[in-house]
């Protein structure tokens, strides 16, 4: 009889109290956010003069929080622009048949062009667009970060659009949804998980380019934006090791904080868009998301905003149904296809010819040969980097991945390591190289690997933890040990993950070469022989044709290696070594 606890109205009051607490948290956080944005926006509109613009920032530690906030704002603006771009571009590529044939190869090439090359080429454009405020330089920095994030997210969203489950697509057409409705009710939700995951990874990689783009040397001018990267650059120039250490600490705190306050809640929230019928075994948790869910502020905001959604829905109705006509005039379609292809081909040819003429007039077409030769040196460094990091990190990654207890602690650490911008540490390493007298040609490999090797570790951990337990048990049962176990069980199982990690690491290494082959600390400047140094030096000296040659040659290297080597390896990994049955 006394097994049932009597109903206590206190329970209701306790729940209300926790709801008020959550509400208070959310409201305070939103207020702080708005105040921060207002203060930062004020700084962005400051006047700007091309000649007398500051080329360094003060290294006063009290400026550090403000600089960190400015850097963070740039990252988030770039993320917003990348998201909008990827939604628009991927939808266009997936839905417009003719546009797809152009948009996808363009995206592929854009992904291989080194990001910092983009920056060098477009800075003057931004400065002319916004002549009298700092907005021009800000825009250039945001653009650099954007180019490091957007392509990945676009590919991920495009992939999710073309692999939508067929019956959801058919259901949407049978229900006669309009294009707008289908986009928001089917396309975006089904692509949300890839978008969020890729956004998170690209965001981590974006720190690197933020740091590299806050001090821009173009055309013999140096522009410095207020930000944590320029702080470190100024500190290294003035050889203030203590302040550099402080900045590194602030950077680590910022990376972790963004992870906890933004990405983890977003990833946990995105779980509701999983299309598989049963929930994933390892559901991500987030304290911030729990607080948000307990508070009633989001629901109130949602209710206030709903009429806007309704009117947008009505406004978008004239765009028509999300349908493709069944009957198409085959001949007219083919004629239009031919016309379209002809126009694109002519434009492409004209562009290439103009570019070649420009280069010829600038430095002569012989530069291409020189650049290719330098590219071999950088290529050599990338190869050594990949081999050494695989040999070192693969065993460690396997050990971490196959030990669930260790991986629970190690995974977040590796994530932070992977997003921590390696170029923060470049001045320290330069100091080390200067002291020990090691040539930058070898030291450059270490610098490049500081950012790139974590991708190998990260992916090998993920691959090792995904080895099915029954395979491991079978191996234990058959008493597989040592080298045999590695050859027959571990290496084949982690091969696909290793390939993914290696591809990403190689791409990161090529990009890093532009900032790693020319490094400076104080008065010392070390220059390596390689394509990255070529590009960096021609950008600083304002030799635009040379920059163009260098960027083009590096793109050719990356695209070529991708097609000839990495894609084949990936296909082999998928066919023979994939762990999915059937």
């Amino acid at each position, binding site marked *: 009889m006394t097994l049932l606890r009597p109903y206590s109205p206190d329970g209701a009051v306790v729940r209300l109290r926790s709801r008020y607490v959550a509400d208070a948290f959310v409201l305070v956080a939103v207020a702080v956010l708005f105040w921060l944005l207002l203060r930062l926006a004020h700084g962005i509109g400051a006047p700007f003069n091309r000649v007398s613009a500051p080329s360094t920032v003060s290294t006063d530690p009290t400026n550090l929080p403000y600089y960190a906030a400015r850097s963070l704002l740039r990252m988030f603006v770039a993320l917003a622009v990348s998201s909008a771009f990827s939604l628009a571009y991927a939808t266009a590529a997936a839905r417009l048949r003719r546009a797809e044939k152009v948009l996808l190869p363009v995206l592929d090439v854009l992904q291989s062009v080194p990001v910092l090359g983009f920056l060098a080429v477009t800075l003057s454009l931004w400065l002319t667009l916004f002549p009298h405020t700092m907005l021009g330089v800000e825009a250039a920095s945001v653009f650099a970060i954007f180019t490091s994030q957007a392509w990945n997210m676009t590919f991920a969203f495009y992939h999710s659009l073309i692999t939508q489950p067929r019956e959801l697509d058919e259901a949407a057409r*049978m229900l006669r949804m309009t294009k707008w409705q289908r986009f928001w009710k089917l396309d975006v939700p089904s692509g949300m998980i890839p978008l969020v995951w890729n956004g998170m990874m690209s965001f981590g990689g974006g720190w690197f380019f933020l740091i590299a783009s806050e001090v821009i040397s173009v055309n013999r001018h140096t522009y410095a934006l207020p930000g944590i990267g320029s702080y470190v650059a100024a500190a290294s120039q003035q050889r203030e090791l203590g302040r550099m250490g402080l900045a590194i600490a602030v950077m680590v705190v910022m990376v972790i904080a963004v992870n906890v306050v933004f990405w983890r809640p977003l990833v946990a929230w995105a779980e509701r868009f999983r299309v598989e019928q049963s929930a994933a075994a390892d559901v991500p948790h987030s304290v911030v998301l729990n607080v948000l869910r307990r508070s009633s502020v989001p629901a109130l905001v949602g209710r206030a905003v709903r009429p806007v959604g309704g009117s947008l829905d009505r406004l978008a109705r004239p765009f028509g149904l999300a349908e493709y006509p069944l009957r198409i005039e085959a001949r007219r379609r083919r004629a239009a296809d031919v016309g379209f292809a002809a126009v694109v081909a002519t434009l492409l040819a004209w562009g290439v010819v103009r570019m070649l003429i420009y280069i010829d007039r600038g430095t002569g077409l012989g530069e291409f040969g020189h650049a290719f030769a330098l590219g071999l040196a950088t290529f050599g460094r990338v190869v050594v980097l990949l081999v050494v990091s695989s040999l070192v990190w693969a065993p460690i990654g396997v050990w971490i991945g196959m030990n669930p207890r260790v991986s629970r602690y190690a995974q977040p650490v590796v994530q932070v390591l992977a997003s921590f911008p390696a170029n923060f540490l470049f001045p320290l390493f330069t100091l080390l190289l200067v002291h020990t007298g090691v040539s930058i040609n070898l030291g450059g490999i270490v610098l490049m690997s500081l950012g790139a090797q974590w991708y190998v570790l990260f992916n090998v951990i993920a691959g090792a933890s995904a080895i099915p337990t029954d395979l491991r048990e079978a191996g234990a049962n058959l008493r597989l040990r040592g080298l045999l176990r590695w050859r027959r069980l571990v290496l084949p199982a982690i091969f696909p993950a290793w390939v993914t990690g290696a591809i990403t690491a190689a791409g990161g290494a090529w990009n890093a070469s532009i900032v790693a082959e020319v490094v400076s600390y104080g008065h010392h400047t070390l220059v390596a022989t390689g394509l990255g140094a070529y590009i960096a030096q021609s950008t600083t000296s304002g030799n635009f044709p040379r920059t163009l040659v260098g960027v083009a040659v590096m793109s050719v290297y990356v695209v070529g290696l991708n097609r000839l080597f990495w894609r084949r390896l990936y296909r082999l990994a998928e066919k023979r070594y994939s762990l999915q049955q059937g």
Partner: protein
Amino acid sequence: MTNASAALRERTAIVEVDNVSKSFDGADGRPLTVLDSVSLTLQEGEIVALLGKSGSGKSTLLRTVAGLIAPSRGEVRYRGQPLNGANPGVSMVFQTFALMPWLTVQANVELGLQARGVPEAERRRRALEAIDIIGLDGFETAYPKELSGGMRQRVGFARALVVQPDALLMDEPFSALDVLTAENLRNELMALWSRPDFPTKAICIVTHNIEEAVLLADRIVVLGANPGHVKAEVPVHLPRPRDRRSPTFDALVDQLYAVLTGREETAAPKTSGPLTHPLPDATVGGLAGLVEIVYAHNGQTDLPDLAEELSFEVDDLLPLVDAATMLGLLEVEGAQAFLTDAGRQWYTADIQTSKEIFARLAVDKAPLVRTIVKALENSEDGTLRDDFFRDLLRRGYTPDHTEKQLDIAIDWGRYGELFDYDADTGELVLSEIAAALSRDLAPPQ
């Protein structure tokens, strides 16, 4: 033809399928026909079932009716208007429910109304009403992940019916559910159909379950495969509610089994080759099990009874029966299967002899296996790459079907020790050579 069908034709046609053919482009550009000159009319007040084995194009046919697929030739009309997109007057219920996992039950049901621009208050009222009718009252704020299969399909029904379509199309709606839930939903569907205020005027259901077709339909259209065509149209005049145990029901089921397993009326081609006679999807293990069961029934069994005993549906049982018939292990007449002498020998022999028997039968009667063995015998060293046969098969089948055919042939060939297959190199090796090789490599005794 008769007065009955003339009277039928006087009723208004909702959807007319007029001589529709559908072909896809094969790997080498030659078209592969999935549907061949199929005509069908969906009239007011009737339930039509499309019945057929897998590969008979019944899902493709349903999708041309729905306006999701464009026919290569012929036309589909909705109330006289040719379709150029999704059919505006029909709703569809899917085999895998096709619910948006990120929307609640109520939001899912409201989707169709929202698409039509119905204002919010009325939308909510109609959705709640539909959810109530379908029996999900109380689950409006649940997400599909929290629901069982039967409940998810109810949401699918509610979503389809809330827009009050002219015709309801169903693509194997109960095949993903367990037997009891499926039975429950079928009865509820029939209860809805018999209500006078039910707005939907016709239902077209695709099924591979013969009993389901007889339970639900007024008219059963049996489709044959290779290429898809109408094999027979069987009217069902049983009064509703229909009793499974009535003798007329049984007779109809038997008749349909006979139609499904029956030979084609058209003249068969003189030579049977791998492209004209595909291997049915059956493993050697499955064949052995089937032969064992028929043997246990004294060499003769009734196919519908067998299906019921094993809880098999048409798609599970008929490929086995077809394979056994092709290899000469069973003989089928009407709805009865008889064990042949060869089948009896195969079952009663020991492992080695049974393999030899199977090998002989496969080479004699299975066209693709015969082709492979002959090609290997004629080759220089008794080995050939699988791509050789893949190219041959691609001339007549889709890539998926090609892979399936190869897999079946390799399974049969391996069991009969006719040839060996090395997955790494993709090579088929004639078995005597394989045996000789292993003899050469073994250490001398």
